[in-house]
């Protein structure tokens, strides 16, 4: 079963990731935490993909304009409390295992080395076999 694990981060100062203002050791520990998690997922044969996203400051909201051309609004978007910082796709045996991985991601260390308890949204990817018998 494939799951998407979405990491929602609090909206940092001026639309940057919070990590931009952390001390060096905290940044290094944080980065190392992700590297370890990704390596473990690969070794377990569960890794499908991971994508980290640029800060919301770099984001654009696009709508179709009256002429059908893209109408673009720049970030940041101060009304947003949390934003998507990155996501994994994992292929695991059960929802329980996906929850375990999410909990691990949630406990990534913050500026003081303590777990951040980041909220991770877990969503199953639709890919089950279909049956033609009711």
């Amino acid at each position, binding site marked *: 079963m494939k799951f998407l694990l979405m990491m929602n981060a609090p909206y940092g100062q001026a639309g940057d990731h919070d990590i931009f203002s952390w001390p060096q050791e905290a940044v290094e520990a944080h980065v190392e935490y992700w590297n370890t998690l990704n390596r473990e997922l690969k070794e377990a044969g569960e890794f499908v993909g991971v994508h980290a996203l640029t800060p919301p400051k770099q984001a654009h909201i696009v709508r179709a304009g009256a002429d059908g051309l893209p109408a673009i609004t720049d970030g940041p978007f101060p009304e947003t409390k949390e934003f998507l910082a990155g996501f994994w796709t994992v292929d695991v045996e059960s929802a329980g295992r996906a929850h375990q991985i999410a909990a691990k991601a949630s406990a990534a260390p913050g500026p003081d080395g303590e777990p951040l308890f980041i909220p991770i949204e877990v969503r199953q990817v639709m890919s089950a*076999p279909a049956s033609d018998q009711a």
Partner: protein
Amino acid sequence: MTDAAVGHLLRELAPQVLGAVARRHGDFDAAEDAVQEALLAAATQWPAQGVPANPRGWLYHVALRRMTDHVRSEMARRRREDAVATQVWADWAFVPPPDGEVGVDGDDTLVLLFMCCHPALTPPSAIALTLRAVGGLTTAEIASAFLVPEATMAQRISRAKASIKASGVPFAMPTQAERADRLRAVLQVIYLVFNEGYTSSAGADLHRPDLSNEAIRLARAVHALLPDDGEVAGLLALMLLTDARRAARTGPHGELIPLDEQDRGLWNRELIDEGVALVSGALSRGSAGAYQLQAAIAALHDEAPSTEATDWAQIHALYGLLRRMSDNPMAALSHAISAAMVHGPAVGLEMVAALDADPRIAGHYRLDAVRGHLHQMAGDPERAIAHYRAAARRTASIPERDYLLTKAARLAMGQAEPKAESKASPGE
């Protein structure tokens, strides 16, 4: 012989030779490397120089020689590194075959299958290893079939091999007492591969192997080795009879077409005839197992000219038997559908309600899908719509969700404007 014919032959022989070499040496990983080298040698030599009189024996001996070379060079390396380990290595490498037999036979494929489908492995690991070692698919092919990166699949396969090694399972035919359990595990893995073949994925990929065909090929191989086993025949029949409907079960855009709306002219008669013959033969030998019963049900569907002309009474009786035999809540649900077809939707709905108390299936989308269907049968569109939508919310299959939503939308439209049946919807 052409390259393609050689390739086909090698693919058939590979698991037998791998089974034999691994059985003799006890190291699956090293055996696989040695067999790979032997296959490579055959693929380059045979098309030009001709296929040897005993191709299986040729591969076995070349692989064995590679294995010995490998062991010797390992020993030399180890001798330099660690004098004590040398003795261990030598003991490990030259274990004589159990009963002095040398050579390759069909049993070696079975031994390999029993090992790959060992209950100590998780289903995804067993599936990957079986497709690799017995099915002869490359790691890249298996990865693309499951839509994961190749490195991930390679890791899954090597972990599976490592856990077999760690479990200390001997690389040999299981004892008579164990055999039934192990065969059940093999059949389950093959059936999982088959069902995985029905997973929808956006965009067809020419390099993506067809898992349903692979499963049928594996089941044919097992059936050839164990022709008298009713459940092996039953599983092969069930897959043939299901696959026979393949062309009719999806529309041009991959949308799901349920059994009662399929164009039965598109069903594959040849597969149906083969499946029916197999299951009839197996059932006539007595003691029907779960796969044989499911195959018999599929045969009744496939032989019926229409839903109305289907022998629902017989199907209802078979699901009753299946239920008693396997205590499977999915069988109980199908039993409820057949009850509705024979005795009316109220009886079916009552049987579905009883399943709410079964934690294995309570809350499953299929309960709602069936309820939707039965309420529609009973002429209660409002309830049918609610259940179809509830089912659509929970299914993890895109074609199934689209089908359920369309059903609900069609009923809702019929309720709002009873005569607007033929009104075009977007995309039509």
